[in-house]
């Protein structure tokens, strides 16, 4: 299978604002259908999005979106993007449908097409009945949805969603994440999801770029991580009389091609080779008269990645 073409290439990108370096020498090639942008507050997530949108000029390096340079082809890049800002953003004194229509027309849609797409976008995000009300009167959750609608109405190829679940109650948050997954799975638009909530990113994203103090701490493929983690087991093996039997089982597993390492509390960590499944471990233990008392898959991969990234000064790929 061909690797997916990169949608965003960061090529030594650096940005200084007010004399302070906010982004430093970012290098990565982002290619997933939905890419999470993670990092603690002040890590530079929003600044990176704003720089890609052309709001801030790079102080060094550059970036390319769909192969177009952000320094020289800002308008062409923006024409393919939809942006949902983090803060409350709307045009006062307009109904939802008029607001979204204006935004679509500014993106270049003719008035009739813009009106049609505005209605469709508002229905799609679930604001069908509220679309004639003034945006100023919307609740926080509705304002988040109308921001998503204006980002979608002109039919972009790439969506920038900056903290889309901010301030949402659990049902609204679930609905927002469902919409993001729907867009991702539809395959018509790629999504960059900036968030400080690991759960949001984990539920929607295939790749994750973790920023720390303006640098790339980690760029990881979550799908690959999940696949790898399914091959990492932790076992507690005992003999029939209850005595620990990890070393004996390790020898048997090694014969099957597993990589083995002793774990805490006399447990055994195993990496399964291709073609060997967890059920083979039970078969192996039964054949040797041993008992597997505990078997764990590695979980919380994103949290591990994030915590590891926050610990050191990592700069690379997991």
């Amino acid at each position, binding site marked *: 299978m061909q690797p997916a073409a990169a949608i965003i290439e960061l090529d030594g990108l650096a940005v200084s604002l007010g004399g302070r370096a906010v982004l430093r020498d970012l290098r990565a090639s982002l290619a997933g259908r939905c890419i999470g942008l993670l990092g603690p507050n002040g890590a530079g997530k929003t600044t990176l999005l704003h720089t890609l949108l052309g709001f801030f000029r790079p102080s060094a390096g550059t970036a390319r979106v769909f192969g177009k340079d952000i320094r020289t082809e800002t308008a062409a890049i923006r024409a393919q993007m939809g942006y949902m800002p983090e*803060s409350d953003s709307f*045009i006062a004194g*307009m109904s939802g449908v008029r607001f979204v229509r204006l935004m679509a027309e500014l993106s*270049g*849609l003719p008035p009739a097409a813009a009106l049609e797409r505005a209605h469709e976008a508002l229905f*799609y995000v679930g604001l069908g009945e509220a679309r004639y009300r003034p945006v100023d009167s919307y609740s926080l959750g509705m304002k988040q949805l109308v921001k998503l609608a204006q980002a979608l109405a002109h039919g972009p190829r790439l969506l920038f969603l900056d903290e889309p679940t901010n301030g949402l109650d659990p049902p609204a948050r679930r609905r927002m994440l469902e919409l993001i997954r729907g867009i991702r799975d539809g395959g018509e638009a790629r999504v960059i999801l900036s968030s400080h909530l690991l759960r949001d990113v984990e539920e929607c994203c295939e790749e994750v770029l973790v920023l720390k103090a303006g640098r790339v701490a980690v760029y990881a493929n979550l799908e690959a991580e999940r696949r790898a983690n399914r091959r990492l087991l932790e076992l507690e093996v005992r003999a029939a009389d209850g005595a620990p039997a990890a070393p004996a089982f390790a020898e048997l597993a090694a014969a099957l091609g597993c990589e083995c390492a002793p774990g805490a509390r006399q447990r055994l960590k195993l990496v399964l080779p291709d073609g060997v499944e967890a059920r083979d471990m039970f078969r192996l233990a039964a054949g040797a008269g041993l008992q597997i008392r505990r078997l764990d898959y590695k979980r919380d991969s994103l949290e591990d990645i994030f915590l590891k990234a926050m610990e050191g000064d990592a700069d690379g790929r997991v």
Partner: protein
Amino acid sequence: MAVFERTYHRYDGPLTTRRRRFLVVPRYALAAVMRSRAFVMFYLLCFLPPFAGLIMIYLRHNLSALKLLGMRLDRLREVLPIDADFFSRSLALQGFFAFLLAVVVAPALISPDLRNNGLALYLSRPFSRSEYVLGKLSVLALLISTITWVPGILLFLLQGYLEGGGWFGEQWRVLGALFAGSWVLIVSLSLLALTVSAWVKWKPVARIVLLILFFVMNAFGRVMEMALGTWWSELLSMRMVIETVWASLFGVAPPTGMPAGAAWVALLAGTLLCLGLLFRRVRAYEVVR
């Protein structure tokens, strides 16, 4: 993204041309402005002086109509000539209405976008800061045009038609002065009003600031002129500066002793200052140092 499908689809239909996209802004803004009945009433009021001018020109060329009305205005032609001075005074009067119109409309143009973080939405599209400013400027330009040079030129053409003979040849300068003078007013006034709207987020305060800039500065300039006996202080008065520029365009006596060159330089400097201040403010996000 058909409603019944409830899935997202890209738009692959035709797009509008980039050059005319800024006109989307005045279309929406004018629709919002015209929703106010009070504004529509005021806007109609702005057409009263050109309408009075129309009647005056008509009666001037139909003395028999005056006689029918029993009016003894046989010497109207001598008392009130329709010449450069007439059109210059008409423009000055319409300039006042234009200022009031800018005070009413301009504060609602940029400050709400800044207050509600709307600029990030405009500028995240293939829509530049210059197009945004041009779009907002054209709202005022369209409204002020309809009460300044458009009726002015129509009156000029009517007078020329009724007068006949060599009137056009004698007064051709007035036509250019009407058009150029109106645009001097439109650009300088609109930029000043938009700059205030961009820097003062609260609409009523922005209106008060505009009134202060116009009336108080005008009065201050006059007082200083009387106290110091120099025209330098008149440069503080936007009205005096613009009227001096108009006088140079129409070829009539200037309202003060301010040289036309100084007025042009002051106007240009003020316009550039407003542009600089405006673009400093019109950004998707402000960088806090």
